[in-house]
């Protein structure tokens, strides 16, 4: 096939060549978008008939959930008012959503229960002190974590107890625990739970891995017992049986009973979390420490626990989230935590409307959700931080 044809003005003289294009190639369509919102929608939502169907179903669900929720919680909500008339559709003359006026009216009760008016600053101070401790311990930028731990687990509980319960000697009027209520009680329960369960859980976890058979047996029985029974039975037991087991006429404080129950219960779960961390420590660490001549407690305190606890920070936070949610169960045995203050306030005829109960529940849900979601975000961030170290060492995630 030789070329002999010559080209003039874009025309080709016909020779042995079968085809030579005489005109310019027509412009091609631009390539399919790979960036930008349109491309994103096409790739993620409309890539196949099934995907289109799923998108439609998903949008329908969103349509079912979101607009009514927004309408109830915000658009139709009543923000101000002094009694039920503000939140009754008949008196307002329109569709009524959440009755935030009722929450505002009851907010003091929800947060402090029946805590005396003149002493509220004490509860507020406890909140602030608690916040300081939490930020100190949880923020990665804060220095002196050891001192923070001493503050949060040693100083703060004593200070909080003195502030809340009172100490007449230094001029703080005694406030009986039966007057405590709402968020104060919820936080007291959750905090005592974590402060008791962490050290106790660590001891139990060590006991479960001990080579002394009786120590191991006792730990296993203790852990499996509390993990095997529901918390509500523990609370009822604390309520009905604890007074029986104590000598004479000692009747433990009504709030102390569920605290004991919650703390023991949480310890068992904490022990299992810590055990997971202990098992993740390579054997070489133990052997290395032993070859340095460290005894058991030195080895545990200086080598094993610092590593094990670091690994299980996410697990500890998750246990704490569970504990925090579980404190709501004390309302069943008559303790005035947040759940119970809401339940009690619902029975008040002054605010009895069809929307009162949903509003109260929405408020409680908001409170618990913000706390728990915040903690779980923290736990995830921590997990990523801890995993970073492993990644650099080339460990497969």
């Amino acid at each position, binding site marked *: 096939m030789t070329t002999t044809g010559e080209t003039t003005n874009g025309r080709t003289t016909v020779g042995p060549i079968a085809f030579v294009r005489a005109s310019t190639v027509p412009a091609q369509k631009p390539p399919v978008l790979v960036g930008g919102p349109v491309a994103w929608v096409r790739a993620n939502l409309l890539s196949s008939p099934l995907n289109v169907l799923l998108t439609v179903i998903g949008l329908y*669900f969103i349509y079912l959930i979101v607009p009514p929720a927004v309408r109830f919680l915000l658009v139709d909500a009543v923000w101000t008012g002094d009694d039920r008339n503000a939140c009754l559709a008949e008196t307002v003359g329109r569709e009524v959503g959440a009755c935030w006026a009722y929450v505002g009216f009851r907010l003091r009760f929800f947060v402090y229960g029946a805590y005396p008016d003149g002493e509220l600053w004490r509860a507020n101070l406890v909140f602030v002190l608690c916040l300081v401790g939490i930020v100190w311990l949880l923020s990665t930028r804060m220095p002196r974590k050891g001192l923070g731990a001493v503050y949060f687990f040693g100083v703060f509980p004593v200070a909080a107890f003195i502030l809340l319960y009172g100490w007449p000697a230094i001029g703080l009027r005694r406030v009986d625990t039966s007057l405590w209520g709402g968020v104060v009680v919820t936080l007291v329960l959750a905090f005592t739970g974590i402060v008791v369960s962490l050290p106790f859980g660590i001891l139990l976890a060590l006991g479960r891995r001990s080579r002394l058979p009786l120590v191991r047996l006792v730990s296993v029985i203790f852990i499996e017992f509390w993990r095997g029974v529901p918390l509500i039975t523990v609370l009822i037991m604390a309520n009905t049986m604890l007074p029986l087991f104590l000598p004479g006429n000692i009747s433990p404080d009504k709030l102390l009973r569920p605290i004991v129950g919650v703390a023991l219960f949480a310890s068992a779960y904490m022990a299992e979390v810590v055990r997971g961390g202990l098992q993740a420590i390579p054997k070489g660490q133990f052997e290395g420490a032993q070859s340095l*001549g460290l005894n058991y407690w030195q080895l545990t305190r200086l080598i094993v626990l610092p590593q094990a606890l670091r690994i299980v920070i996410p697990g500890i936070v998750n246990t704490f989230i569970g504990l925090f949610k579980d404190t709501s169960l004390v*309302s069943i045995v008559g303790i005035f935590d947040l*759940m119970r203050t809401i339940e009690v306030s619902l029975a008040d005829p002054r605010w009895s409307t069809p929307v009162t109960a949903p509003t109260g529940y929405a408020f409680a849900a908001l409170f618990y959700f913000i706390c728990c979601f915040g903690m779980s975000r923290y736990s995830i961030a921590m997990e990523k931080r801890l995993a970073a170290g492993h990644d650099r060492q080339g460990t497969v995630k």
Partner: protein
Amino acid sequence: MSDTAPASGGKRASGEPERGGDARGGDAIVSLFYNPTFRGVLYQVALIAAISFILYEAATNAIVNMRRLGIVSGLSFWNAPAGFDINQRLIDYSSTYSTYGDAFWVGLLNTLLVAGMGIVLATLLGFIVGVARLSRNKIISLLASSYVEFFRNIPLLLQLYVWYNAVLRTLPAPRQSLTLADAAYLNNRGLFLPQPVFGPGSEALLAAAAAAIAAIAFYRRWARRDQDITGRQHATGTVSLLILLGALAAAWFLAGGPVTFNVPEQRGFNVAGGLQVFPEFVALLLGLSIYTAAFIAEIVRAGILSVSRGQTEAAYALGLRPGVSQRLIIIPQAMRVIVPPLTSQLLNLTKNSSLAVAIGYPDLVQVFMGTVLNQTGQAIECVVITMGVYLLLSLLTSFVMNIYNRRVAIVER
């Protein structure tokens, strides 16, 4: 623990002054104390002594206190007439002639009923949400993760209150019942469904079902072996279903339609007849399933993500379609990671069913640790029995799940 090192030789060689002054007997005691075996025994003896002391104190206090309060311990109350009513009962029970023992069984069965149905529902919902969370469709995965975050971070008790007080309580009164074809009614007293009445000959259905299941087992074994030998595939799912339905239909016609239905009807202010599903039960079932499903979804997601991407790619390379490769390649491997935490979630569901006490569903805790305990004052007996039941349930479940776990575990060389 290497306490042996400084035991004897090292100490004497170093000649520490404060020990050098000790008498020979004191030295022996010190070295005995540094002996790890002896120390171990010492620790354990101390632990047992402490526990025994606490138990002894508790027991003696309990005896004194009970005598003071006039409580006679023992299980004699078990056969005493109960005298209270329980609305939902799976076995014969009446306030006029039933005993506390009967009440216990009614409560236990109610717990098992709600836990059993909750386990099925929560597992199904959890798998759906967990898979949906991994969907490439962003709206679906957004919905699924919203579901998980929302329900996981709100206490179950609050969810139960919402279902019971804010949703089911607001259903219409019996007169304005919502109805489906005049056979099922929904109102604030519950859901009324047609109740099957098993007449004579119903046993034939049971026998047919048993026979069908046996036949299916044989067929599947044969089909599997045949596929191993010849490579032919059999539609085992369809055939199994046909065998079961066929057997049941045959038994139905041969026995002359033994099962009739007691259809509820609307009478005046109430709905009579039929099977009444109480709102407490529905609220508890919904709350438990939806709450636990959020946790299961996370477990399922983690399980599926744990199967390496190469497995999916290899499945595609073999020509398997996405659905099939998911079912035959990914899920079976993911199950290994899923099962252990799933077990503990299902156990949690069972234990959480005790929250029934908050909304008045007559489960074991509500009946036995609530009403019976309050009526008889037998705190120790009621608490021990109830806790014992939950412990037993926990142990049984973990036992069964461990067997399964062993079956699906990786067989390593």
